[in-house]
């Protein structure tokens, strides 16, 4: 025969114990939610990986996976070619620098700054007459940047230049091209101002960023300080079409001022 009083006593004791334990089980350690809000606020102001926390001595799994994904996107940007379809749609003919392949392009910067005479002949044939402004694209360190920005950039930029009465050369695409190829190209065409739209070295999380390097009277052997640069052109930076309209105005000012780079005082 079970002693009902004993059972009741045991149940009561267990319940009491459970009630004591309950708050500790259900309530996590008091967490300061305001600190969380402040952290989120800080994170929202930057694409940098701030306040990502850790798991023991390692990154947390999601942080690590995001990092790997972004790193892969950055590598893709460097290694992938600009899709031919995009170049065809914009009627951009491709010319190549002295580099034979991507590997050589990455290891021999000097070769990415020069074009063979056959390539220069192609450019000359596209642009038989000198012009006020020559705009062309180069893959640089991100083919993705050209693929993402060129279709919206080219028409607004050329519209804007022509609205100012400037004559524009026929654009083309330089494969394995570095910025400083622009001197040789500008000299070949006889362009007063040359504007190279080139893929930026991708950061982690901005593989589509494009820059414009604008030079007045570009000449072989000129100092780097002679170039005017506008960077960060992509959806997450300055919108592509807006950048195009800005570049058109800036090139107009450079043409009028007959100077670029440090010799040109930007407003």
């Amino acid at each position, binding site marked *: 025969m079970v002693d009902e009083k004993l059972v009741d006593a045991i149940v009561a004791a267990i319940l009491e114990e459970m009630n004591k334990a309950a708050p500790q089980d259900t309530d996590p350690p008091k967490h300061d939610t305001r600190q969380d809000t402040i952290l989120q*606020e800080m994170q929202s102001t930057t694409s940098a990986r701030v306040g990502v926390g850790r798991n023991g001595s390692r990154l947390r799994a999601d942080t690590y996976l995001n990092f790997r994904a972004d790193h892969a996107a950055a590598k893709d940007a460097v290694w992938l070619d600009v899709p031919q379809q995009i170049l065809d749609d914009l009627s951009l003919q491709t010319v190549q620098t002295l580099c034979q392949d991507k590997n050589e392009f990455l290891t021999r910067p000097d070769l990415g700054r020069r074009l063979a005479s056959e390539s220069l002949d192609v450019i000359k044939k596209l642009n038989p007459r000198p012009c006020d402004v020559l705009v062309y694209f180069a893959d640089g360190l991100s083919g993705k940047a050209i693929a993402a920005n060129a279709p919206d950039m080219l028409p607004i930029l050329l519209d804007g230049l022509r609205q100012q009465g400037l004559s524009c050369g026929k654009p083309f695409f330089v494969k394995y091209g570095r910025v400083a190829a622009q001197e040789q190209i500008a000299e070949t065409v006889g362009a007063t101002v040359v504007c190279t739209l080139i893929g930026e070295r991708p950061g982690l999380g901005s593989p589509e960023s494009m820059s414009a390097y604008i030079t007045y009277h570009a000449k072989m052997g000129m100092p780097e300080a002679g170039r005017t640069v506008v960077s960060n052109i992509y959806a997450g930076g300055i919108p*592509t079409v807006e950048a195009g*309209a800005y570049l058109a*105005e800036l090139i107009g000012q450079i043409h009028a001022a007959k100077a670029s780079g440090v010799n040109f005082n930007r407003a």
Partner: protein
Amino acid sequence: MAETIYSIGIDAGTSTSQTVLSSFLLENHGGYFSVPQVAFAERQVLWQSEIHETPLRSAEEIDAPALRALVAADIAAAQPYLNGHPISTGAVIITGETARKSNADAVLKELSGFAGDFVAATAGPDLESELAGRGSGAAERSKTHKTTVVNFDIGGGTTNVAVFRKGELVGVTCFDIGGRHIRFDSENRIIYMSATVRRLIKAHTLRVEEGKTAAEETLKRIAHAMTDVLFMQEDAYRTKGAAQLSAPVKALLETDAEITFSGGVADCIYNNKSNPYLYGDFGVFLGQAIRESRLFGKQTVKPRETIRATVTGAGMYSVTLSGSTIGYADASVFPLKNLPVFTVTPEKEELLWSGKGADELGAAFAGFLAQNDTDNAVLYLEGKANPGYMELDRLARSVAQVFAHAIRKELPRIVVFFHDIAKAAGQLLRRYMENGDSARKGKVVALDRIRVDARNYLDIGRPLMGGLAVPVVVKTLLLG
């Protein structure tokens, strides 16, 4: 590159009028390798006037010549701080009871024209609340501390409430509550009671009569009853034309919101006054009652400016900057003043982006102009964060068509976007104008990074920083 501009703020309030001179340092934060980005790097108060009593000719009329003389004397006194530079911007705001005087409109226009070429004339309870909240420092505090701050600007006639969350304005309202609702003569006899006070007396069955003194206990009860009104959301006590607060004051108090008080009565809240009849009005009683209410507690903070909050706001925070890539060809069209805003609904805007609906919208725009009895207005579109060339081209063509319907060809065509696309849109728009009619050449003004709504008016000043950006005052012009 940097540039300093000078700004004046003038506040003609229920009981006091003040002037503030400040300077703004503009800098290009874009960096050498980027697109320009002009921003205010520093705002500084250079000079503050005395606190003048607002001159009135009668209960219904402002003494315009006397007020003008006060402002003229203030501007003269501020000259040494300008170092020969012109006053290039600022705002005159007519606030509280003064905004309801019969000649408020005329006085406002005259003062703004008199103070400077691009000094905006402004009025309206919501704008007043916002400017007081920014001028007091509540907005900045909420931005720095990433908190919610509620500013109560308690003046002679009205109490203007503004709620800021992380520096952003999230709600405003205005109550007919203030220190001048009861006035006393030198013998402490009541010489004036407002309609709000009369209503409270009736509701609480108190015995108070004009021409006689009242028991201090009774006056305290009225002050407490008035304070309670702040917790209500009843239209009866809200100032005509003021917006409804996003959350009632009571609900805000239950959050971790901080509370700041500004305006003339603030001093009577933060500091105990031994003589309640000190200013010949009800302000000390009201301040005391607020101090004893739930509004005052551990969440209360003293702001940077109290009695000068509104005038500081008008001088320092009424002007904003457009984006730094904008479109205009002819700078001589500026300044543009008192432009009403024709806002396009998201659905209609979507149609414009796809090249449709321009004729209908053009007709509506023309109707809007007729209704506002004006020949020009701002066309306001939200825009898109990163539009493609083709769609922007379609939009520009549609917008050109909208303008063609509504705006006479010799007038500027002013389009404002929220998103950063104005330079591109302006360039495309100009093309469609030039194709049509040479008289329209150069008359396109496209601005961005400005948020406005249908109740707003815009003042647009002359370009700054070598033409990169224009100063813009987004304002209301509501006189009671």
